């Protein structure tokens, strides 16, 4: 799970550096922030306890 989020952050940072001509990059960064927020709120252990994962 943490590996996936790390890859998401790498992807967004890479897009900001390599594809600045794409004006939607900040929105992707916003999406990545929400992914981190989701990971913070719904911690993996909690999902395991709930049987979601």
């Amino acid at each position, binding site marked *: *799970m*943490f*590996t996936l*989020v*790390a*890859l998401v*952050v*790498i992807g*967004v*940072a*890479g897009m*900001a*550096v390599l594809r*600045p*001509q794409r*004006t939607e*990059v*900040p*929105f992707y*960064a*916003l999406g*990545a*922030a929400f992914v*981190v*927020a989701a*990971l*913070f709120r719904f*911690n*993996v*252990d909690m*999902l*395991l306890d709930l049987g979601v*994962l």
Partner: protein
Amino acid sequence: MTTTTTTTAPAATLGRRPLGNYVMLLIPLAYCGILAASLAVQFSGELPCELCLMQRWCMLLVSVGPVYVVQRIRLGRLTPHDVSRGLGVTVVASMLGGLISLHQLTLTNLPGHHGFGPVILGLHTYTWALVCFTLTVLYAAVHLMWPARLAPQNTRAAGAPERLVVGLYVCTTLLVCGLAVLQGGFHLDFHTFRYELPHDLGLL
């Protein structure tokens, strides 16, 4: 027929660049320095916990906005919309990072508890993170109050400092996220006592 003219304050300049351009360079540079210090702690043998890791990701996402603005300046296609969007990402990521720092701070704010990790100038690293995130939000507020003075602008002077900061940001991102992948491995949960990926791949 009447015509109306609007006057705006000229952008403050420092050398050949507007002041706002320097600030857009300073934010990623400062966070890269903080992340480099955290990596030094990690290389000394103290692996980050889940909350520390999420704060590091927030620092990288805080820097995405200014890095995007710097890259737009290098392209020569910066618009006020780009600056607003970049700062928006910075504010959201700062607030999220501050929330995580505050959560970690309240976890250790118990009688007789001395907190986690190293103490730097009397404060723990997560407390310093909270200070940095708060200062970033305050800067964004100041920027919104004086946009004409602080707005970054397209300039022909963009060159070596911009390349240096973007390069540093790329290296820091790859290191922080690469080490997170190394530590997380293919597990759903997260361990703070060893790097899991080599064990998952059967290398160790």
